[in-house]
């Protein structure tokens, strides 16, 4: 499993597609699609994701998650919980990922895993 993080609009998906040669049809946008596709974009929308089931079905998946934790803490309790859950989800996935990269202005920095991509 590979984890790609970065702020909104930074070019995370384009970077993954360029690195892998996958096309947009290969990209999952829901946990159900992610069971069988190589790339799952929009992890931040699924803070309650069943990670165990997903990783059991698709251990080599590339997860793409938007960074959402760097703003003013929201007034709404549900929003606060969602941001926290997304952050924790990324921490758990990063701990298990063989590779973690952060995308910024379309550029990448490797946070974990120095080997070749695949």
């Amino acid at each position, binding site marked *: 499993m590979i984890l790609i993080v970065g702020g909104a*609009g930074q070019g995370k998906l384009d970077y993954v597609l360029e690195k892998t040669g996958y096309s947009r049809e290969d990209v999952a946008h829901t946990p159900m699609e992610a069971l069988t596709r190589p790339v799952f974009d929009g992890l931040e929308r699924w803070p309650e994701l069943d990670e165990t089931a997903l990783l059991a079905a698709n251990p080599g998946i590339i997860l793409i998650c938007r960074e959402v934790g*760097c*703003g003013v803490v929201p007034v709404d309790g549900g929003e606060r919980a969602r941001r926290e859950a997304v952050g924790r989800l990324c921490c758990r996935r990063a701990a298990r990922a063989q590779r973690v990269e952060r995308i910024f*202005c*379309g550029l990448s920095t490797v946070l974990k895993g120095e080997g070749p991509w695949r």
Partner: protein
Amino acid sequence: MLILVTGGAGSGKSAFAESLLDGWRGEKIYLATMAAGDGESLRRIERHRAMRAGKGFATVERQRDLEMLSLPTGCAVLVEDLPNLWANQFFAPGGEPGREEDVLAGLDTLCSTAARVVVVSGELFSDGTDYAPETVRYLEGLATLHRALAARAAAVYEVVCGIPVTWKGEKA
């Protein structure tokens, strides 16, 4: 040569950007893009003016349409800053929202005249807030500009707590 400097509010990105032009032998232009709206922005402009004092910058104020500027060939330009420049273009009064291409064209023209262009921008993309559609569109445009400039730039730096993190080019 184009250099992109970005970072959070109060991160020290402007001071770092200015330092990239220390020792520049030719003309140094400070291209100020902010339309001062209130006391806070006036104070901020004053703080930046004081910071630049004695560093040899000539200040040029231009809020949009940079391609209309005529600057001396071979000069160095510090553009402060991109979020303002894009806002001035995007939220232009009484008309269609401005386009990223127009801002890029202006910066490209600048780069064809100036020998060194340092663009200061800001990090607005990782707060996870659901903004109104127009603001989302503004942020998407700014992110598009960041990617386009980073692709063109010789160097890209993110300033964190006054420390420049090198994303591209010569290590700061």
